[in-house]
């Protein structure tokens, strides 16, 4: 057993863990942060994406002990003062989710993407979330969600509902 000290969604934790325990499992099983999900065993699906020290990581590809001393944000800690993050809002407004299984990871990846590129083109969004798989949506409304969030996050932007009807772009 090894000791790990981390801050997760603003709360400090200290635990003795098995060295092989994945961060994803630590979050889910030790801390009960079941909002973070696991979809594969080869680090391909991105369902487990969280932020570690401000950057998105696939928490199934990080050992819990590697997060020692770090700060983790999960989907459960993304809202601030009861206010959903604009990316969360956009996913709801633009129907960016169906079964919801890819959603926590997708949102965490999208937040990171918009940190790097606040005004991505459709192509840039598609490339940017390539590491997160969704089997339900065909991605079109996910792309729309991310671009709509980008618009709403621009300084001075008034949060507004994204267009919902009609197809194509």
């Amino acid at each position: 057993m090894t000791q790990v000290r981390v801050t997760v969604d603003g709360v400090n934790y200290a635990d003795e863990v098995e060295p092989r325990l994945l961060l994803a499992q630590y979050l889910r099983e030790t801390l009960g942060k079941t909002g973070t999900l696991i979809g594969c065993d080869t680090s391909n699906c991105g369902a487990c994406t969280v932020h570690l020290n401000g950057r998105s990581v696939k928490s199934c590809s990080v050992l819990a002990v590697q997060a020692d001393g770090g700060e983790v944000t999960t989907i459960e800690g993304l809202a601030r003062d009861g206010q959903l993050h604009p990316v969360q809002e956009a996913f709801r407004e633009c129907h960016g989710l169906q079964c919801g299984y890819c959603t926590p990871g997708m949102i965490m990846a999208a937040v990171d993407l918009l940190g790097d590129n606040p005004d991505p083109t459709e192509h840039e969004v598609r490339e940017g979330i390539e590491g997160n798989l969704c089997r339900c949506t065909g991605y079109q409304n996910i792309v729309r969600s991310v671009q709509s969030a980008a618009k709403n996050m621009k300084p001075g932007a008034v949060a507004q509902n994204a267009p919902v009807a009609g197809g194509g772009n």
Partner: protein
Amino acid sequence: MTTTAEPTTTEIGKSRVRKEDARLIAGRSRYTDSITPPGTLHIAVVRTTLARATITSIDKSEAEKSPGVHGVYTAADLGAEAVGMPCAWPVTPDQKAPQRPVLGIGRVSFSGEGVAVVVARSMAEAKDAAELVEVDYDPQDAILDMEAASKDGADLVHPDLGTNVSATWQFDSKAMGTGDSVDDAIKEAESDPDSIVVRRRFRQQRLIPAFMEPRSCVVDPTGEQITIWSATQVPHILRTMTTVTLGIPESKLRVIAPDVGGGFGGKIGVLPEEMLCVLLAQKLGKPVKWTETRSESMLTAHHGRDQIQDLTITAKKDGTITGLDVHLLADMGSYLGLVGPGVPILGAFMFNAIYKIPALKFTCSNVFTNKTLTDAYRGAGRPEATFGIERMMDELAVELGRDPMELREQNWISHEEFPFTTVAGLTYDTGNYEQATARAMELFDYAGLRREQEERKRSGDPVQLGIGISTFTEMCGLAPSRVLGSLDYGAGGWEAASIRMLATGKVEVITGASAHGQGHETAFSQIVADQLGVPFEDVEILHGDTQVSPKGLDTYGSRSLVVGGIAIVNAAEKVVAKAKKIAAHLLEASEDDLEFANGTFTVKGTDKGKAIQEIAFATFMAHDYPEDMEPSLDSDAVFDPENFSYPHGTHLAAMEVDTDTGRVTLRNYVCVDDIGNVINPLIVEGQVHGGLAQGIAQALFEEANYDEQGTLVNATFVDYTIPSAADLPSFTTESMSTAATSNKLGVKGVGEAGTIASTPAIVNGVLDAIRHLGVTEIEMPTTSQRVWRALQVAKGGNPMETPSDTHSPGAGLGSIDPNNPKGEVL
């Protein structure tokens, strides 16, 4: 205000954002693997890597000593040797069905089959111990080629059955009295210089549903009822089938499907692992949990498709189709799934599609091989049929030198001809193929793209353009119970609903349709809000727990709205009828003088009225109500449809093929679907997008590949290439509506449309781009490698310059290109 009792429509047709999402976007989810009652034991299944072998010994001793282990069990140790997993669809009276054990007994029949199970305190300990179970096998050559397996004298997957052919099912329009004789049509066409006979063989490759949430099951035996949480599409069927399989009374079982992360037919089964959890929980008296890894899921969750289609179409040289003969071989894998044998049969009624074909014969043989079993996958039988006929229409057009759209139009049912009874005996109630097609062609710029195509052909552009067409229909809303009965299906097709009016005016709606991402809670709330005139927010949809929703047949076959939704409407009408009686009593008016609109009963010509919420409260108080009534507004309904519904649409794909590299690019995709009346356009659009992605993925990316030993070689997301966002474009989707007449809402269903329609559109487009270069057929998925090879062969070049394509029916590396293992095309 309306003057009839018809509900005013304010919610139906609105793009409501989904109720479900508030939780899901915040990580407030409850998928099965997130449920772990105190004291839960975890299981890991010891699986064989061999496709066909006898088990000579199992040594559990090391595993039993491993830390945290409670026990290691074989089927014999659990006394489960006689347990067989259920198959609910004996398609013929003499269907051959092997026992499908919970764990292999004496032999294994596919790579991934369980042979023992380890129970431990943690999942990690269970997995560690599973590695220590020593199993010795005597391996035999795997039987992988369904065509060879179907022949007399073939080596047998299940020797005691005496054959690899589970069943041969036939539909003949002549014998059924629904049409002419196909044999005559072929004979006539062969001897008539003014007719043509076109024969083709198509392959429907094997696919993996690949829902994002791995399957999981938790069984808690500590209550009076055994509680099963499962990541399933079919909690009600799972409960009944657990009784059938293990003999536990249904009344002692409670099944809960909490949040379920996608299914697409892939979670329609009843699993050996679910039964193992029940058996172990009973034996150990503790909650027992199983969650599969992704690789386990790819190996053992049922696959879809996998057919060889031999089709013969006959036509007059003027383009009029005279007959269609369909011969299918369908690979069942090593066992029969819950509804697996019926999946290809569902296609029988869809091969004639939207066309007036006077003679149809359909013959399907279901064949055993040493592979993972196959069962429903989005569309289930109908995508295969649609692919066959839509590819065949293009082939016929080529043979006749006709424009493929024009040829379709010549043969399809025109909008004046509805209702139309087809050669398969189904009555299509409504549709307008002309309208959908005209709109799709306009959005697509069909004429412009045809001009560009010609220009590129003429200039010898290395990137050629192809236009792919699919004018599809499907049968949705499974299903009229009597039709299922006539097909020997082991259940009905009705759906149940209940509505409870709470004292405070809130409404609880219980549905037997169990959602796993479709947005039932939102769409059903919209329906009930309109029916009862209550606010959308006041409607709560309850589902997926057999103690809450005791009656239901769950979610598959685009049935939730078309069957389940109508049951809800019927229940709501009963609520309104009861409320009206009480309203009349309280208002001291005759029922005939009351009108109901926007949730209020009003005495005609006065301003006297009562809201339905007031009636609900008065009914709860029960101080004053009519003598001939019970004090309750609550109502139940079970709806059994009389007919299927028949959505249709026109799908067009612009495909670019780089003739130097074989690279295929989907440039533009347009579809116009008639799904009847639309409850929520936002949800509909999402269903279409997701369906398209899966159908396109079949055409371009996905295939479950087995090697010569019968090992699934792409059993991870590294190798099995479900598309990412970067692999797909945005689609142009529109809907139009001819209301269904078979149900009160006029709805047709949308869950499978995109998947059914898109696959042939893509492949037709790829071939259309390079047919003039001599390419006549490319198997799916049409990867760069396959396209490039087809181009080399057509040129008379040597396709063997790169590593050989070992793909042959049932064996080989298939589409995996060592230089491009992900089969990337974009």
